[in-house]
């Protein structure tokens, strides 16, 4: 396989609750234009395009095709990816495969969501509709909270089971979730491409109501409008076209059986076990020649719809031992100037244009490596290796991308 690097990133000028001044293709094309501007490339330099967002969230189908001209995709190979919460990173992985395989040299990966135009709860409901229909038809009062099968309050409810299991097994306290939430929101305040940009204290978080114990409103992500584009290139084209690069040194993805709302066929997996995270990250580390991620990884961008997840993923991705993440938080190791800066961007927890959310993790790593961060959240130390992570599906699908300042390879 060939070496592949990210040579440029484009964001919409803002990530906010409602972009009422532009429609969907207009909004996405802002990020496409920004990627061209930042790389000084033109559409003629692009060999193929990958495109990702959630199905049905905006009440539209096949947006990649009706927006093809806005994507500068006319006359090019063009593929849509939709893997749920991981869509953004799967779209990047697809672009990586296009180039690593030798079939294409320069590929643009486009990811977005414009949640204000749709209804995310309905979009999520579509995923569990067959399950919900079975339960309702067999006598279950889904939200009434009686007997067997109650759903537990939407996606936050299911995440609450995960959070409780994580707290129990790690020994962390609910206050650690408050603390992680405050850290990430304060990081987001420094990031011009974050949505919720307010310096936040633990007391601010603790003033928000509980949605489903142990999760508060202040532990949950917003719904955002925004788009992110990355351009990836082969080593040869990096030398020709780019003034800076972050290498994609390892990729991995894995699934388990559904770890939430899997009533029809019997759920068998703890939502906090997340074995796919171990499998995907082991594969990506091996590819990137990383033997001990807890020593060799310099920064982490974790996919966290909920604030407890940043801590949980650090353990699942081998960046610390089980039960150690909250101690690293207490010691300041996860701060922007700490030993393992985690979600310096503010994470999904502060900005969630879902289709772009798992893309913003590796693009943040790439810009940190290139030292091209806008705003105040540039990590001061040199980043040799970074790990980014995506999560979604039925709590059971994980993607991992390891990026580096140099091409590095192992046995993977």
């Amino acid at each position, binding site marked *: 396989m060939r070496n592949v690097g990210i040579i440029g990133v484009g964001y919409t000028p803002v990530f906010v609750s409602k972009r009422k*001044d532009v429609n969907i293709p207009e909004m996405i094309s802002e990020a496409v234009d920004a990627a061209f501007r930042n790389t000084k490339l033109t559409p003629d330099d692009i060999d193929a395009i990958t495109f990702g967002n959630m199905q049905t969230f905006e009440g539209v189908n096949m947006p990649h095709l009706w927006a093809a001209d806005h994507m500068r995709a006319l006359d090019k190979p063009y593929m849509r990816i939709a893997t749920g919460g991981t869509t953004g990173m799967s779209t990047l992985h697809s672009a990586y495969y296009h180039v690593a395989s030798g079939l294409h040299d320069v590929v643009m990966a486009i990811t977005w969501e414009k949640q204000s*135009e749709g209804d995310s709860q309905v979009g999520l409901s579509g995923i569990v509709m067959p399950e919900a229909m*079975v*339960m309702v038809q067999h006598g279950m009062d889904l939200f009434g909270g009686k*007997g067997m099968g109650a*759903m537990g309050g939407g996606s936050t409810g299911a995440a609450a089971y995960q959070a409780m299991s994580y707290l129990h097994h790690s020994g962390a306290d609910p206050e650690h979730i408050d603390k992680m939430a405050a850290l990430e929101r304060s990081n987001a305040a420094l990031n011009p491409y974050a949505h919720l940009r307010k310096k936040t204290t633990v007391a601010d978080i603790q003033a928000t109501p509980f949605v489903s114990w142990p999760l508060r409103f202040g532990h949950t992500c917003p719904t955002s409008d925004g788009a992110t584009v990355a351009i990836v290139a082969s080593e040869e084209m990096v030398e020709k076209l780019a003034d800076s690069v972050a290498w994609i040194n390892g990729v991995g993805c894995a699934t388990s059986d559904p770890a939430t709302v899997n*009533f029809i*066929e*019997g759920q068998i997996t703890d939502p906090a076990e997340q074995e796919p995270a171990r499998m995907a990250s082991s594969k990506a580390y091996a590819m990137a020649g990383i033997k001990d991620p807890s020593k060799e990884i310099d920064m982490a961008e974790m996919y966290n719809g909920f604030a407890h997840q940043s801590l949980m993923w650090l353990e699942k991705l081998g960046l610390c031992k089980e039960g150690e993440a909250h101690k690293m938080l207490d010691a300041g190791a996860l701060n922007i100037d700490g030993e393992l800066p985690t979600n310096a961007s503010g994470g999904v927890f502060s900005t969630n244009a879902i289709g772009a959310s798992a893309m913003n993790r590796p693009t943040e790593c790439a810009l940190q490596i290139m030292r091209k961060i806008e705003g105040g959240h540039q990590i001061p130390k040199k980043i040799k290796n970074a790990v980014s992570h995506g999560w979604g599906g039925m709590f059971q699908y994980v993607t991992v991308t390891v990026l580096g300042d140099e091409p590095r390879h192992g046995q993977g």
Partner: protein
Amino acid sequence: MTFEMGEETREVQGTWDISTYKYLIDGAGMKLLVDSMKEKKIRGIKCPQCETVYVPGPTFCRKCYIDIDEVVEIGETGVVMSYAVEMADVRGNPLEEFRLTAMIKLDGADTWIIGTISGMDWHDARIGMRVKAFWVDEPVGSLADIDRFEAI
């Protein structure tokens, strides 16, 4: 880079009519489960190879990828694997009465079901706590035949 919001575009309301989709509802072990609940029993399916017991049972083992059909009876007691306390509904409106719901592994099963736990202060809930199912007086072969779980 500075950004100024432009004028707002106009928008209209639209809906998707999803009422014509069809969902099959008796798949896998659902019928086995609700039929057994009519007798105040809980039945699942066991894999002969890895001995995993699924409730409700699928038609194949998800670990061995072989077809399975051995019906086994499961206990009505079990252990809380995780729990949550609903304090707001699915749209975020606060609930007047909090609801303690748990992921419960019934004795004899390897899978987890979700159940509502009644009769205790949620502050006292613990992972690892043992619970028992309580049935409605006249079961009809429905998931609602289990009225609630209580700590034992």
